[in-house]
């Protein structure tokens, strides 16, 4: 009874009004940088779409709510956005736990599609609806738990030739999920981590963990965590001296704030990500990067969030253009987009299908190396991995040290 009432109140507005896309995320608090970056991605996309006359003659509008990274507030915010603001589509919150909390609401009660852009947890997409064959209203652009782990491990083992991997993961948050996935993938390749260390939030010293890594002969430290502790790892590593074990991490620290905080200590660090903004870029993306600098007069806080949010709005507009403004129809149309050349995502095959709601696959992920303050994409040729600091210039990397060859 209540579900029907709720569904009824989600009827889209009359023709002529704006079409609203909603976002509830951390707009205040310690991780609010991500919330604002996502907002900017949505704004830029909506501006571009509206400049061309909107979708089916109607303009798009972004509606923002602050959930303070708190799942309870996310639920409240989503109820507000859907029932009272009449949004027809959503860009997902930045907190995995928040999305886990609202997924049943979206699939069972409200039936409004959401594209997540910054949340890793596998269970958001592979949820109950998917398992029981019902319509799945959750989609994702960006890294996801199991995929990222597969990508990291495969890159290190197959592309860099390193088999002795030491795990150093955050005891909270996505750290433990990462650890589980990494261990799983290693096992699938017939390997085991030579060291398996954890650290706590706010730890400033990693001496014990790094000493154990050295003793175990780790060839690379694989990390899931946040910037603060990563810097502590770098400092401890430098203090303990040579040999300095190279460091690869998930995309949690693949943001400019890392270099701001760590400086030279981060040189040589490799992270996984879905997009880079430094170094040579395809012209469409470079145009958006320039437009960002011009419009906001600032550097990126998190390029991936920005581009994924941009792409999410673009994909929604494509779906709406095809199928209209009914949330259920938008959802179905998302599964029918044959190809997409966007800001972050560039694919020549269907973006989403009925069975695959992850926009990125392992082929779309990339590694980036922090080189002189820039996050440069890692490419491979016959000589091995390399980065391109500028157009046409190739600098090869030593896979055992991550330093210049």
């Amino acid at each position: 009874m209540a579900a029907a009432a709720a569904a009824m109140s989600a009827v889209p507005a009359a023709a002529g009004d704006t079409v609203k896309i909603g976002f509830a995320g951390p707009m205040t608090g310690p991780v609010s940088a991500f919330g604002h970056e996502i907002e900017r991605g949505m704004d830029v996309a909506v501006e571009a779409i509206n400049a061309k006359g909107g979708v089916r003659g109607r303009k798009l509008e972004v509606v923002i709510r602050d959930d303070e990274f708190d799942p309870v507030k996310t639920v409240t915010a989503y109820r507000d956005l859907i029932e009272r603001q009449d949004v027809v589509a959503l860009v997902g919150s930045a907190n995995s736990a928040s999305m886990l909390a609202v997924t049943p609401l979206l699939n069972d009660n409200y039936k409004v599609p959401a594209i997540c852009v910054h949340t890793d947890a596998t269970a958001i997409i592979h949820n109950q609806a998917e398992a029981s064959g019902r319509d799945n209203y959750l989609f994702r652009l960006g890294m996801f738990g199991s995929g990222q782990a597969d990508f990291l491990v495969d890159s290190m083992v197959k592309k860099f030739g390193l088999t002795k991997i030491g795990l150093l993961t955050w005891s909270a948050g996505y750290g433990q999920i990462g650890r589980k996935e990494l261990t799983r993938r290693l096992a699938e390749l017939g390997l085991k981590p030579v060291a398996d260390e954890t650290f706590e939030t706010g730890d400033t010293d990693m001496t014990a963990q790094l000493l154990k890594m050295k003793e175990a002969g780790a060839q690379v430290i694989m990390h899931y965590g946040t910037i603060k502790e990563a810097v502590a790892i770098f400092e401890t590593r430098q203090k303990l001296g040579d040999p300095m074990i190279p460091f690869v991490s998930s995309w949690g620290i693949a943001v400019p704030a890392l270099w701001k905080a760590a400086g030279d200590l981060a040189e040589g660090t490799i992270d996984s990500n879905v997009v880079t903004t430094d170094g040579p870029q395809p012209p469409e993306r470079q145009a958006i990067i320039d437009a960002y600098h011009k419009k906001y007069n600032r550097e990126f806080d998190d390029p991936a969030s920005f581009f994924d949010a941009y792409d999410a709005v673009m994909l929604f507009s494509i779906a709406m253009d095809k199928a209209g403004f009914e949330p259920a129809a938008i959802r179905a149309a998302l599964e029918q987009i044959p190809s997409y050349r966007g800001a972050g995502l560039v694919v020549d095959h269907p973006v989403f299908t009925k069975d695959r709601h992850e926009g990125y696959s392992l082929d779309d992920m990339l590694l980036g190396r922090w080189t002189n303050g820039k996050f440069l994409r890692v490419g491979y040729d016959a000589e091995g991995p390399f980065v391109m600091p500028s157009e046409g210039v190739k600098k090869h990397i030593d896979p055992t040290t991550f330093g210049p060859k």
Partner: protein
Amino acid sequence: MSAPILRALAFIGLAVLLAFPLLVAGAYFKFLLILVFIYSIVAIGLNILVGYAGQFSLRHAALMAVGAYGSALISISLGSIPVLAATGANVWIGMVAGSLAAGLAGAALAFPALRLKGPYLAMVTVAFGWMTWKVLLNWTSLTGGDLGVASIPSMRIGSRTFDIDAYYYFAGVAVAVAFLLQRNLARSDFGRKLRAIKHSEIAAASVGVDVHREKVVVFVLSAVFAGAGGALFAHVENFINPDDFQFYDSVFFLLAVLFGGAGTLIGPLIGAAFLTIAPEMLQDAERYRLIIFGVIILATLYALPNGVAGALLTRLPLEQAPRRSPRSGARSGGRAPALAAVAQRPILTVSGLAKAFGGVRALADVSLAVEAGKVHALIGPNGAGKTTLVNILSGYYRPDHGHIAIDGRRTDLHSLHHAAQRGVVRTFQNIRLFGDMTAREHVMVGAELGARSGMLDALFNTPRRRREQARREAIADELLALVGLAAHADLPGSTLAYGHRRLLEIARALAASPRALLMDEPAAGLVAGEIEALGTLILELRKQGLAIVLVEHHMDLVMQVSDVVTVLDYGQVISHGEPTAVQRDPAVIEAYLGGADLRSFTFA
């Protein structure tokens, strides 16, 4: 604002709340109100702790987490038993179990911490909160870690799952029940006892209140409320993770209580409602929202220290103090204390008492015997050890050497309340009252030792509780008449004149049915007429068979009422015997004056 207007407002508010689901479609507001109800339940529990018992829990959200996770995990695992899953009983059992688990956690916390003075409870709650946080995050196999527990079953009755309207009404009823329980508690003798503890633990203990036990009991009750709120939360949200129970959430509850008005009945509801709804309304102020919010709260704390409810109400707290009941007329005379046959054998004996503090020897080899129906005065220069002796006799200190015997049996008095249970009650040199509780309430608290009704009776307002209150009221009226304060019975203790406060303290002590009453300088600060009245009272008590130990400097009073005088100097007994003999004893004169005649000297 007066009571009738408030009642009318409350009635209107209740009507609106009841009709709400019918008036408003959509889940947004209903959900918000459900949250307000849930948070109110936790806040009520915290209010009982902070407002009534004066204790602080800085991590109440951790107790809520115990309830939430306990209920979620238990109902999920019980859900595999078909008969339970079919009836929905797995959730009901889970919720009860979760609440009780929170109570257990509260007991484990409070029991050690509340034995100590100072902010130790607050510190222990900090430790507990931190530990809970770590367990929730790190013990991933049990709690799911950061990703929490999902697919928590909704509440059900049979095959009917609760929808949001059902949750709304259930939560509303739950908070109403919590409110009623709180009100019952506040208006009961248990509630009075709590308030007495908050004002002065020592005074409460001196009349037989087991302060530690009551503080633990209250903390456990408060924890059960928090756990119940958490359990309901888990099944409403169907998803919980550690982010729901952070440090900031504990701060939220504390703010709700203080902002609403600690120690008032509706305070926690006002606080929870404001703190939940206001941020939602301020959504558009974005990054300044938290600052504005924080400033408002601080300003309220500063300008309205009794909270919003405290400022609105004409009298704090809302519960009414019992007024003179028409049944008990003012009976003249007092009542006879427990001992009918006035035994000549001493009630209280001490032998060879010694007590040292660091290097200072306060008492050395002190022995005396106190008999029923006799007044035994204890005099000596300042620092002679008189108060120390009284403290030992009343159980506050343990002697280093020597022993105490009551009725000839060696007894180890380990606390004020233990001594009171054994029949030894004392008054204090610096009067210790219970703040603005009425005179009658003071004496009612004093009648603790005969109590047969406890917290559960208070919560559910059983007939036993009401009988208990009647018993105490009768005792209070009698004793107030005895000491001459009958006309002041309904006045707050803090407004009484100094002399009357003394008398009130004595009346309160008498309510504990002592066999030995220790009075520490009762005449201090009294004017001549009051001292005379005090003397008359002491003689009356003596006639009723009470054994009285009187520490005094007023020699006239000592001479007037005493049967026996013991003189202490530098911790030792230097003289003992009848008042006139002691007065002439050269050793005594020497100790006080170094030579002059004591008769011509009175200490004011």
